[in-house]
């Protein structure tokens, strides 16, 4: 099968070199690449492009099964590829809920059939996300989907005994409990961050303490039972402090931040436009600064999108009636470039760490998040950092339109994405897998 000779690309933004991708792996680097390339290989002039290991998202809502009107595994993973991702973790809050081996295997197979990115299903912690009884976590772990990340995302595993049991039980198969930290009683009817803006515009507040109290409890539980805890979409300055403290104590906790919590603030709610309604809510400029600082110093381990597609009618309404969530797969890398790379706190190697290596390690995804080296799987993305785009949801690959970055100019553009050596995105164009076109090569 012909491969790709990628010429003059900068792996992790370092010195330019050539890469030869063939048979799903990186077969040669540097001078060897050109000399081993044959005339059948496609040559990509990658001068000016940065090569990153294929990105890995720990937090994606693909909506299938159940809400195929907003996203399918196919459209969602195509959006992932367009955003530079080669693996995504599909959240469990589908209908039916991904709380059995059957559902997680279905989602995993849909991902494999679509061919845009590897889908790693996340298993629900509790049956039906109801927070009452543990789902069959072991069955999901040993299924074909090999689930390692468990989460009731969208709902908090609030019962401290249940959370303790989940952290303990998942140790048997090296699982991780990914917690949506939201104290439910403190957030009844909550609509936005509780603070100066909510006071003024009269929307019920979602206080920072409702997130921080759960994180504080959970890190202590993780310490007590020795389980692996991952904190999802951390959004407040206080949460960063708690994670920093927990890590200093040696607690096995990791944390993620979303692109929107790295860039947007609660001031946007003044428009009452529900495109800015998200859970946890957009916080203050001080929180954004603290989350960025936490990402810069390694307190926050990864950036995850929390890509949450919604139907038009669920956003084209009054704020309180609207759904929580925003899309993010196709803007994630751009936001990280803007707020971390261009602000000087990240190199491209750091970007690879928080968007590929570490999320792969947390999710125990063995063939992603690997170094760019000879013999490694050819899961790669090539980015043009000099490009600038004005975000237009109508031309995105996701089936939904609820991007909070619509109309905003963001830096960088994903030009190529390779999944096991196959170009899923070729010079910004999505390319259907040969198995789906009938054109088997």
């Amino acid at each position, binding site marked *: 099968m012909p491969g790709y000779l990628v010429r003059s690309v900068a792996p992790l933004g370092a010195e330019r070199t050539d890469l030869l991708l063939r048979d799903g792996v990186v077969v040669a680097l540097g001078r060897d690449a050109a000399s081993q390339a044959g005339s059948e290989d496609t040559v990509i002039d990658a001068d000016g492009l940065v090569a990153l290991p294929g990105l890995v998202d720990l937090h994606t809502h693909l909506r299938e099964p159940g809400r195929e009107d907003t996203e399918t595994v196919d459209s969602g993973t195509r959006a992932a590829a367009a955003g530079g991702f080669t693996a995504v973790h599909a959240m469990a809050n589908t209908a039916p809920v991904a709380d059995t081996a059957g559902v997680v295997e279905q989602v995993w197979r849909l991902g494999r059939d679509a061919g845009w990115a590897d889908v790693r299903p996340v298993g629900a912690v509790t049956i039906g996300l109801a927070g009452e009884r543990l789902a069959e976590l072991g069955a999901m772990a040993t299924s074909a989907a090999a689930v390692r990340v468990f989460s009731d995302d969208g709902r908090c595993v609030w019962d401290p005994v249940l959370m303790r049991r989940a952290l303990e039980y998942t140790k048997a198969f090296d699982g991780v409990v990914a917690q949506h930290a939201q104290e439910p009683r403190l957030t009844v009817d909550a609509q936005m961050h509780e603070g100066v803006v909510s006071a003024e515009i009269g*929307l019920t507040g979602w206080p920072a303490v409702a997130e921080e109290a759960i994180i504080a409890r959970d890190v202590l539980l993780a310490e007590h039972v020795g389980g692996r805890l991952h904190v999802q979409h951390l959004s407040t300055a206080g949460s960063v402090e708690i994670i920093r403290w927990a890590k200093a104590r040696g607690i096995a906790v990791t944390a993620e931040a979303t692109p929107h919590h790295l860039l947007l603030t609660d001031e946007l709610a003044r428009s009452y436009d529900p495109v800015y309604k998200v859970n946890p809510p957009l916080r203050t400029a001080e929180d954004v600064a603290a989350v960025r600082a936490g990402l810069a110093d390694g307190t926050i381990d990864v950036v995850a999108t929390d890509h949450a597609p919604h139907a038009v009618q669920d956003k084209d309404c009054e704020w*309180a009636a609207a759904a929580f969530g925003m899309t993010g797969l196709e803007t994630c890398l751009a936001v990280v470039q803007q707020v971390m790379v261009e602000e000087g706190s990240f190199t491209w190697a750091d970007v690879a760490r928080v968007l590929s290596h570490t999320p792969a390690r947390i999710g125990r995804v063995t063939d992603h998040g690997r170094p760019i080296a000879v013999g490694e799987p050819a899961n790669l993305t090539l980015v043009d950092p000099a490009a600038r785009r004005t975000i237009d949801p109508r031309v995105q690959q996701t089936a939904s339109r609820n991007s909070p970055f619509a109309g905003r100019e963001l830096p960088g553009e994903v030009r190529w994405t390779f999944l096991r050596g196959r170009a899923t995105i070729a010079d910004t164009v999505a390319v259907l897998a040969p198995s789906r076109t009938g054109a088997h090569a």
Partner: protein
Amino acid sequence: MRHLLSTTDLDRDAAVALLDTAEAMAQTQSRTIKKLPALRGLTIVNLFFEDSTRTRISFEAAAKRLSADVINFSAKGSSVSKGESLKDTAQTLRAIGADAVVVRHPSSGAPHRLAHAGWIDTPVVNAGDGMHQHPTQALLDAFTLRRHLADGRGDLAGRHVVVVGDVLHSRVARSNVDLLATLGARVTLVAPPTLLPIGVESWRCAVTYDLDAALTDDVDAVMMLRVQRERMTSGFFPSEREYARRYGLDGTRLGRLSDHALVLHPGPMNRGLEISAEAADSPRSTVVEQVANGVSVRMAVLYTLLAGDLAGEGDA
């Protein structure tokens, strides 16, 4: 002025101009024939997603006295529980030929969405949205205060207004703090800490938990907010009696006010809870007058929005 969504839309001059127009409207209301031809041929829709007989009737009277046609559309409960979206309801009313929409909605920001989401292009008047704003209530309160404290002219510079009660859930409090501050008055909010929003410290007013202390501070008017009894069951305060003792305007507190000081209440009152019968029925009470002034103020708002060229207003 295209819409009236919030008292923060009004600067001092715009607010004073509206109050002056309301004063002119009030003069016409003492005539035998109260009806003016100003809005003849125009249709105003009262779109009420919450029960509010008083406010709806007040807007209806205001519109009719300006010769507008009025359509009342009551959709009890939220648009969501009704099954029809706010957008579809609004577009239906536009298609029927509404020239202005007066909207009351339980969700904060719903009037803002109607005005700015691109669904309709008619002027929108906020008749109360969730915990956000109720600008015509604040205007009628300011109108009432101005009549008593400033001879019905100019602003309220230097006057001290104490607002007491459930500030957290109150659109009346938010609208009044903004408008009174814009008009130069000094505002003090009094409430138990549980009924003050986090973030209130950024508002243009003073805040205290001590009603008796606030009442000794050269008070020109006390505005009592309605306290809903279900707040007690939600744990915002322990009992009605404790609330009444600490934050109710009773006879003793009434007696400590200076002679000219007024007592306002937006209604409906919970007699015995936030206000005693003695205070409600005292000569200082402007409760009934506020209702009458409401019609004049709403006439002024509708006139300014719909006969804008005549009123000579810009986009506020």
